[in-house]
């Protein structure tokens, strides 16, 4: 069996297209690379969707936390505290069992016991809370002069938010938000190691990597492959966000543009 056959059989295995059975013997390097790469589809799916939906909730949370009205501030503060203060791992478990018991009550919750929807909800809330805190910090760091200038121009309410507050906030928060995006993608590997079952063995990259490690009892092949995939993914995200950052900062003189630096961030 040539490597191309393997690609045809397993490249889309993680979404259920191709060979039904996972390889049981003769674990060639090609099979491992293809199958783990196929699992990356799920990591990208979770990461991209959670990030793009979470962005809007995060902005809302940041505005809420910075609001003067207690009715708006308290819920946002609690939401952020709840999701930032507890381990994502436990959140996954808890959410899974909540959905499982809700499933008995109503059929609406059926999809949420599967990873594609249930885990997505958890990741969505989680990234919203983390980025909400980042945006909140940026909101507090907006130079006073900018707001005063906006007032002097007679900008108020929605117009001021759209033209001054929001772009400045985004610009200030961007380096930290890039880190958050990278580590969200890393966090997607947790999904299939919590309660959520991998239906018909359609798992993510780490699921397949640990499958190979279990079968061959040799961790020195699948995990480095996984590592290479993730380093590639990280570089892609960094490049994309760097591009966006250049666009956000395009009005600033060159020497005032802060260099995008990827600083450490941590798992949650």
């Amino acid at each position, binding site marked *: 069996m040539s490597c191309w056959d393997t690609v045809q059989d397993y490249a889309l295995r993680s979404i259920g297209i191709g060979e039904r059975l996972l390889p049981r013997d003769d674990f060639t390097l090609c099979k491992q690379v293809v199958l783990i790469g196929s699992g990356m589809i799920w990591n990208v799916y979770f990461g991209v969707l959670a990030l793009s939906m979470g962005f809007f909730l995060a902005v809302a949370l940041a505005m809420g936390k910075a609001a003067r009205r207690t009715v708006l501030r308290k819920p946002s503060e609690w939401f952020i505290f709840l999701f930032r203060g*507890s381990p994502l791992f*436990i959140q996954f478990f808890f959410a899974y069992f909540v959905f499982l018991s809700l499933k008995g009550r109503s059929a609406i919750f059926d999809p949420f016991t599967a990873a594609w929807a249930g885990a997505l909800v958890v990741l969505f809330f989680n990234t919203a809370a983390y980025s909400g805190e980042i945006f909140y910090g940026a909101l507090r760091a907006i130079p006073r002069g900018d707001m005063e200038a906006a007032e002097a121009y007679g900008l108020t309410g929605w117009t001021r938010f759209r033209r001054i507050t929001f772009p400045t906030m985004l610009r200030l928060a961007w380096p930290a938000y890039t880190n958050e995006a990278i580590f969200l993608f890393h966090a997607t590997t947790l999904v299939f190691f919590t309660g959520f079952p991998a239906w018909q063995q359609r798992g993510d990259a780490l699921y397949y990597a640990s499958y190979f490690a279990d079968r061959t009892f040799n961790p020195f092949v699948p995990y480095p492959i996984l590592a290479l995939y993730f380093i590639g993914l990280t570089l892609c995200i960094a490049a994309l966000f760097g591009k966006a950052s250049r666009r956000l900062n395009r009005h600033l003189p060159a020497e005032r543009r802060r260099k995008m630096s990827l600083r450490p961030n941590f798992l949650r």
Partner: protein
Amino acid sequence: MLLLLAVTAPTALLFGFGGAIAARARVLPVRWLGRAYIAIVRGVPDIAFFLFFVIALDQGIEWVRHQALCPDWTLPVRQGSDFVVCAAAKMPSSNAPQWVHEVYGFAIAVVTFAIVFGAFAANVLHGAMMAVPRAQIETAEAYGMSRAQAFRRIVVPQMWVYALPGLSNLWMVLIKATPLLFLLGIEDVVYWARELGGTKTPQFTDYPHGDWRMWYFLALLVFYLGLTRVSEIALDRLMARLTFGQAVAR
């Protein structure tokens, strides 16, 4: 689990210290080693590292013992899908009591955590060492201290203030990473929450109940929230104490 926190935090700090020193060493290969250690661990999901190191460390130790104890063993160590070492090299030996196996597994988990979090700590400490004002080191040189002396007497005592925000962040992360212990095959709170919470029928137990796992995990969630909240307050206090009288912009 709390034991893990207590043991891992200092070990990780030690690893981090080593990494930070290596990253700013003058010998080029050592510096590369330090930098690579920090970069690789940060670029890859840490859960992958946890899964990897547990097997890798176990096999590494057995392989070394195999080489040392059974020199006249001719078969290859990797036979297809098996990892075979001679009986004397088994670690812990197969006739050891159960608690030895558990302690050994726990020790490997601690080392794994220390390796991963050591890289994060190394990064924080490296930044903190760079943040110590240059003038302080120049003054030390003016007093005739050698590089090592200046490092020991000036840089290390002063860097903690700069390192503390990062380290407190790390501590939070460490707290939140402890449930991952479950993945390393150790019977921790997550394991018991799953086992005890599951549906119990009257046939097998004196205390039948439905599926309580949801409530067990809710309790865990609240427990972790409390833990992070308490350490947040404690670290804030510590920070206020350390920066007292220091010219640090906050």
